[in-house]
């Protein structure tokens, strides 16, 4: 088992003929993902990667291939449109890698999909991997190991570091999800914790937060209210200056809730094992798992 995607996921890639799209499409395919279709308007009827059919619209792709998850690489000015297209075509899991989508575009997207049950991951995220089953993202598949720890993070590359530590210690992962660094992520830590809670293959969770916003405090409240699986956390940006945006649109300390220290305190108070260094996330999880036995 896993969350969001598994070996039966039928993946579609929007923007499959672009530079990033085609590069990562090939990597997803090589990892063993069932990549059933690509979409690029005007290139319908062609094939890429030795046989993946390309369609003009998501609607057509879904009707012909029964794709049920989409991975989006289209440029920022068109990305909100792409998310809406995927959701309207009946795609259940929409993963948007694209960075730099205007926030008011995302306001519209959120309003449109609210209440529809569509699960949006990202934007501005590395995607999702259920190791050994399905890669729908831009992470390197080879650093992952199938197993029972869920990983959820606002950061891309920091997630890779975390996964590398886990794998090196022999700790496999059920699913790793990058929820993205934008101020309005499609899914939150709480959304993912809810899914991990129901997933019998997930025994523990790593949560990688960062400065800005209050998603980590929301997670702390949710965990405190009854999330039973052990959680290890790290909060990036403890040394970041206030009032400056640290790359991610969402990573800016602007209110009282935005500081890494406050987030760490909230999570600790909820029983989460907070790793003080990004280099000790794996070790912290190992201790937690050893304690479980």
């Amino acid at each position, binding site marked *: 088992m896993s969350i969001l995607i598994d070996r039966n996921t039928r993946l579609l890639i929007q923007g499959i003929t672009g530079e*990033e799209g085609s590069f*990562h499409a090939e*990597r997803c395919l090589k990892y063993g993902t069932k990549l059933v279709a690509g979409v690029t308007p005007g290139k319908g009827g062609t094939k890429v990667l030795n046989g993946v059919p390309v369609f003009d619209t998501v609607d057509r792709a879904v009707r012909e291939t029964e794709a049920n998850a989409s991975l989006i690489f289209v440029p*920022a*000015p068109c990305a909100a449109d792409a998310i809406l297209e995927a959701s309207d075509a009946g795609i259940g899991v929409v993963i948007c*890698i694209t*960075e*730099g*989508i*205007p*926030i*008011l575009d*995302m*306001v*519209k997207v*959120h*309003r449109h999909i*609210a209440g529809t049950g569509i699960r949006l991951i990202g934007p501005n995220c*590395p995607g999702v991997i259920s190791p050994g089953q399905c890669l729908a993202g*831009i*992470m*390197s598949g080879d650093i992952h190991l199938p197993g029972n720890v869920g990983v959820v*993070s606002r*950061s*891309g*590359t*920091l*997630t*890779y*570091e975390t996964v*590398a530590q886990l794998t090196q210690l022999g700790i496999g992962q059920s699913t790793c999800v990058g929820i993205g*660094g934008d*101020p*309005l992520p499609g899914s939150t830590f709480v959304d993912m914790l809810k899914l991990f809670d129901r997933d019998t293959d997930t025994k523990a969770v790593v949560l*990688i937060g*960062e*400065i800005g*916003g*209050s998603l980590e405090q929301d997670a702390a409240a949710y965990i405190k209210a009854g999330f039973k699986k052990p959680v290890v956390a*790290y909060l*990036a*940006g*403890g*040394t*970041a*200056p206030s*009032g*400056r*945006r*640290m*790359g*991610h*649109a*969402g*990573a800016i300390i602007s209110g*009282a809730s935005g500081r890494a220290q406050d987030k760490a305190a909230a999570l600790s108070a909820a029983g989460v094992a907070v790793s*003080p*260094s*990004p*280099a000790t996330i794996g070790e912290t999880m190992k201790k937690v798992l050893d304690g479980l036995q």
Partner: protein
Amino acid sequence: MKVHEYQAKALMAQFGIPTPHGEVAATPAEAAAITGRLGGRSVLKAQVYAGGRGKAGGIKVANSPKEAESLARQLLGTRLVTHQTTPEGLPVQKLLVEQTIDIHDQAYLSIVVDSSARMPVIMASAAGGIEIEEVASKSPEKILKVHVDPATGFQTYLGQKLAYGMGMDKESARATAALIGNLYRLFEAKDCSLAEINPLAVTNSGKILAVDAKLNFDDNALFRHKDIEALHDTAQEDPREVQAEAWGVKNYVKVDGSIGCMVNGAGLAMAVMDLITLSGGRPANFLDIGTANNPDRVVNSFKIFLSDPDVKAILVNIFGGIARVDVITRGIVEAHKQMKVNVPAVIRLAGTNVEEGKRILKESNLKYIEASDFRDAAVKAVRAARGG
């Protein structure tokens, strides 16, 4: 992106929001002439990208054109230090010279996107003119909020709820509700990240005026607002960050340590800064080279480091994903070709195309310190920055 008060007010005026009469002066003579046109009395406001100007001496009242000239001479060409700036302050190159306003009542008004509700929120408070953060922490009940559903857009009742909620009478409430609608239309039309009027004044003659105005814009949406992008005043920013941006390195923030870090990914870049600090050093910057696979950006990052006398060592930490290690190492090699890298560089590589990247680096015969993981990289960089 920020703009000056006078630019924010000009945009507001375009959207039908009443602002005080005034003009911009770049010289003392202009300040005197404008004060003359305003009837002999004016307020001179230093145009810098920071709040807290009043307490810092950046806002002065002139009772004659002559006094305006003299005050302008004192202000122009200086650097203004407020509680929102660095200790170096910001250069005062322009003054907004405005009519004086008899303020009867002052309110606070702002619009941002509420990330919990995932829609814009309009905030108002009858406790205007003072720091809204203070009001928010001490008496949050004094801040009224309404959300704007993108399905309906701004509706009059939202403005009325705020205006009457602040205790306004019919005339003021009607004008304020209309003004809020106009401010919302500006916020939406120009992709603002913040639209703020503080204070929003009710004058002795009953008029509603935006006495101070602030607009920030969503950087991600500037592609569709070339007019706004053109307003950007780079003189108000750290020259190194301006240079970095000109070189295509957008996510660069200068801080005060000695280790120049080049990292891919914002979270990882923050984590590397944390690790340097935990290892006893201090980072010189935040720098996320991003996901666009562009060797030039790597070259330019090296240029930034080498032009910064604070940088005593360079730490490169790349965990390839959408960014490819081979592309980045090609940039590192190119940087060494183009310039003399006279500080030690610690390099740690992992992820997408790492083998190819390491091969490129090996074949180039560069001198660098190899690190096995990012903790190792941080420890080695701290040691290198100390000269050993």
